């Protein structure tokens, strides 16, 4: 537990002090507990999401960084993307089976930005309505099938 808090504290400091472009730890995320963060993301210039703003919620278990964080889009603007469900769940392999403790909040944010940036057509995943009706609240309980990582 203590090692998880220490690492999150370091990540929070680094991300607040020197965030990559388009990523900000949200001030209204009220990090009262270190185990839940809100991060603001900007759609990258020159992509389909230019000018849009998104919010990501991170939830960390006491086993972080050995367990991946639970990451979902929240708020009113959920990006319209073939790997993002309308309930905010994200189909991205590093969030489940390809997670590694060498990854961080920052690298997850950058992966998500790059996933958005490489999108060529704004649309929901084909099984969106079924998924949203039947899925668990926790996206990590979904056993995703990653068909095409290049999208």
């Amino acid at each position, binding site marked *: 537990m203590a090692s998880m808090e*220490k690492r999150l504290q370091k990540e929070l400091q680094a991300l607040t002090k020197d965030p990559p472009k388009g990523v900000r730890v949200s001030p209204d995320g009220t990090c009262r507990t270190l185990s839940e963060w809100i991060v603001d993301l900007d759609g990258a210039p020159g992509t389909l999401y230019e000018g849009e703003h998104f919010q990501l919620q991170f939830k960390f278990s006491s086993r972080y960084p*050995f367990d991946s964080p639970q990451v979902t889009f929240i708020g009113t603007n959920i990006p319209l993307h*073939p790997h993002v469900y309308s309930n905010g769940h994200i189909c991205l392999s590093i969030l489940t089976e390809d997670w590694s403790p060498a990854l961080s909040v920052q690298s997850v944010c950058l992966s998500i930005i790059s996933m958005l940036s490489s999108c060529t057509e704004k649309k929901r995943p*084909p099984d969106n309505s079924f*998924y949203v009706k039947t899925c668990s609240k926790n996206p990590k309980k979904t*056993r995703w*099938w990653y*068909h095409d990582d290049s999208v």
Partner: protein
Amino acid sequence: MGNCLKTPTTDDISLLRGNDSQESDPNLGPPPPYQERVPVYHPSPNVSRPANQLTEEEQIKIAKRLGLISHLPTGVYDGSVKKGKECVICMCDFVLGDSLRFLPCMHTYHKKCIDDWLMRAFICPSCMEPVDAALLTTYESS
């Protein structure tokens, strides 16, 4: 393109992503002890868990894994920069006297940090290189 098909699951299969694929069938036997909510089995030398909560199969798997891990070289940080200076798992700089473990890919971590991870997945967190494959090649070539 974009087919995020899914099937529901309750187990964290990454924990079982090892060499023995038939052991990763969640339908076999009682649930493994590393499911969500159940305290994670964490067999570092100073943590014990009642053995009666583990199936025989799990005990064997854990013993095998511990055996493999014990073959990986260890050392003490002596300030040499070649060994890197930060453990990416805890994001702390190595301090003189820290116990380190060296993976075959030459990535270095705190012993306690990496051993914890290797019990869950036998791959290097930095380069995602499978550790056991590298171990076997080392044995064969020596």
